[in-house]
């Protein structure tokens, strides 16, 4: 919202430039091009180029070792009869729909708590942010496997209360739950963004509300949440995009299988298995595009729905 405004003021009015100014502008343009080159190389070399290649591969039978054979719409037809694809979509949707709101709610709650002026805020902020830095790493996924294993910390803790635990990561009904908890645990990144957003809300509004006798709850719903809604929206969009692409945690926790019994078969893990384990890179490419379309559709839906609940204070 405010970034757009700044951008407008930065843009100089066109025309009426002196020759010296024009020369300077040309030099600026050249400098910009030089500075942008590494990024452009990256964009075309490792993003756009491979995307075009994968779009072509999506219509081929490609086993990695021989030249791809063009097969038209075969890969797309295959999707409609692929039970594991349907299953992996179900697993992924469950994961996204449960873990993203939970994570955002926890992040928002903690941000509200920290925003009330805790002593040593920067320490808390850093400590709570830490899981976000570690959460996607292989080490944490390995740790998770141990913590939620049959002889892990969770069961040791439960046994203190006489509750008999189970192999949380190795049973189909609970394995996905442990991954959802892992995702929720990485609430630090949205929390920090929420904190910054909370700082932007003018204090006078709260003062005025207090004078008028509005309760804290009332202030939360009438001032904080509406003014924070663009930030909530931003975190929601990023959270959904990110968790649709989750891979590392499921790969490590299930040993690359998506097991037990396919209960943690995330879409990207299935895509990986098709491409690199079953040598069906053509089909895997088609799946990658399907994921892109799904994420695009979700994001578009989000933007459409945002009109009804996101409040821009322009």
């Amino acid at each position, binding site marked *: 919202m405010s970034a757009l405004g700044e951008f407008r003021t930065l843009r100089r009015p066109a025309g009426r430039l002196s020759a010296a100014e024009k020369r300077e502008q040309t030099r600026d343009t050249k400098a910009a091009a030089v500075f942008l080159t590494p990024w452009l190389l990256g964009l075309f070399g490792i993003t756009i180029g*491979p995307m075009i*290649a994968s779009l072509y*591969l999506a219509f081929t039978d490609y086993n990695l070792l021989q030249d*791809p054979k063009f097969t038209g719409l075969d890969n797309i037809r295959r999707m409609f009869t692929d039970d594991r694809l349907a299953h992996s979509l179900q697993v992924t949707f469950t994961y996204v729909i449960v873990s993203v709101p939970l994570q955002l709610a926890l992040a928002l709650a903690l941000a509200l708590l920290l925003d009330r002026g805790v002593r040593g805020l920067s320490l808390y902020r850093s400590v709570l942010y830490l899981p*976000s830095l570690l959460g996607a790493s292989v080490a944490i996924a390995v740790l998770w496997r141990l913590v939620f294993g049959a002889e892990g910390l969770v069961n040791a803790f439960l046994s203190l209360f006489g509750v008999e635990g189970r*192999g949380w990561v190795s049973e189909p009904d609970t394995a996905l739950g442990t991954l959802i908890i892992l995702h929720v645990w990485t609430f630090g990144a949205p929390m920090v963004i929420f904190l910054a957003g909370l700082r932007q809300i003018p204090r006078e509004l709260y003062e005025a509300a207090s004078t008028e006798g509005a309760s804290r709850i009332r202030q939360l719903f009438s001032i904080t949440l509406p003014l924070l809604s663009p930030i909530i929206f931003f975190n929601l969009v990023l959270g959904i995009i990110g968790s649709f692409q989750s891979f590392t945690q499921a790969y490590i926790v299930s040993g690359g299988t998506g097991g037990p019994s*396919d209960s943690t078969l995330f879409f990207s893990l299935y895509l990986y298995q098709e491409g690199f*384990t079953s040598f069906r890179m053509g089909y895997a490419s088609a799946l990658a595009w399907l994921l892109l379309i799904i994420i695009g559709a979700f994001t578009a839906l989000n933007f459409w729905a945002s009109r009804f609940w996101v409040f821009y204070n322009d």
Partner: protein
Amino acid sequence: MTHRVRSGARAGLAAAAAGLLLAGCGVGADPVQNPELSDGEVTITFNWWGADARTQQTLDAIDLFEQEHPNIHVEPQYSDWNGYWDRMATTTAAGDMPDVSQFDQLYLASYADRGALLDLSTVANILDTSALGDKMLDAGRVDGDLYAVPTGGTTNGVIVNTTLFEQYGVPLPDTSHWTWEDMERAATRLTEASGGEVHGISPFGSDSFSLTVWARQHGGRLFDEEGKLAIDPDLLAGYWQRELDFIDSGAAPSAAQLTEKVGLPLDQSDLVTGKTAMSFIPAGQFSAYQAAAPDYDFALVNWPADSDTEPGFQYLKPSMYWAAASTSRHPAEAALLIDFLTNDTRVGELFGLDRGEPGNPAFRRAIEPTLDDSGREALAFTEAMSDEVGETPPITPAGASAIETVLARYNQEVLFGESSPREAAEAFLNELGDSINAAG
């Protein structure tokens, strides 16, 4: 988090693109007949999987090779079994397959059929395979052409932790002629005697070697000569039912406990940590288990069978192979390294039985005096079995390389009661059959 995942996806796409660009030129190029060794400096890459002990042995063998051929530098690449084949697929797609690779029969046909491996008859001027004998070499042929040199063979066996049996005062049945019931009874008694502390047996899991032995024991086979699936769904259902029976009787740990150990390296397996007392292993790995668990005494015995089972269900499975890349720019040097690994008895002494009972008789003679107790036991077992082994079945066909992944998945469905053994068996055969047809 999103950043990492996205960059991962990007890297994947990059690999796919690299594959697309390079697939056209590299893989399947026409090899040179009888290439000459270079006089200049040459660097070749050498790729294998295995535990730490094997890594050290192999690095030592490389040192010997480099001393003998100072102008050749061998660059080692090694990893655990998990991840080895994923990396092999990506490097091969990028036209960058290592010059020499350790191979497994699961993947041999998939790579040879698609032109990724060097036809070794083109380097017969350098690579001498005569020590191995034709029958052994047959296991390295795909459609009649030799693509890989077997290192040796191994039968399957039952490893028994005798320390645990003694500790809990459970007598072992006569394992020279034992039935599945004998095994289950002994295992159940051990579980009971330990109060559930340990379990009697770790059942088969996703291993296609034990499935093949099971099929042969029950008069069937996994694949036929044409490379099609040939196993009766009832046989496969019986295999899984056997596993369920072990779990139900308490002989084996629960499905969840078993699942938790899937894919762990050998030194973290239940057998090594003393959580279970028996399991089915390739005999060649016996020493590795014994070395990883020095507190226990292990014994190696033959599989149980039903009383009416015909002998000959065991077979000598090629434990692993050496293969060269068809894209190698130094086929002569690659062949020289394989020749060294196959024929130099110092290599045999270094490797011992780790890569199976050596196929080269000179290796066997060289290592016999150097073996420790567990090595002698493994060798004695394999020699005793040599009277019992039958014909070696055809190797895993192209398109079926993922058999163990698929097997593991349906195995879990059965263990967690999501499918009956019979349903899972039919679904498994359909899925793998489709995959083989698509590759053919």
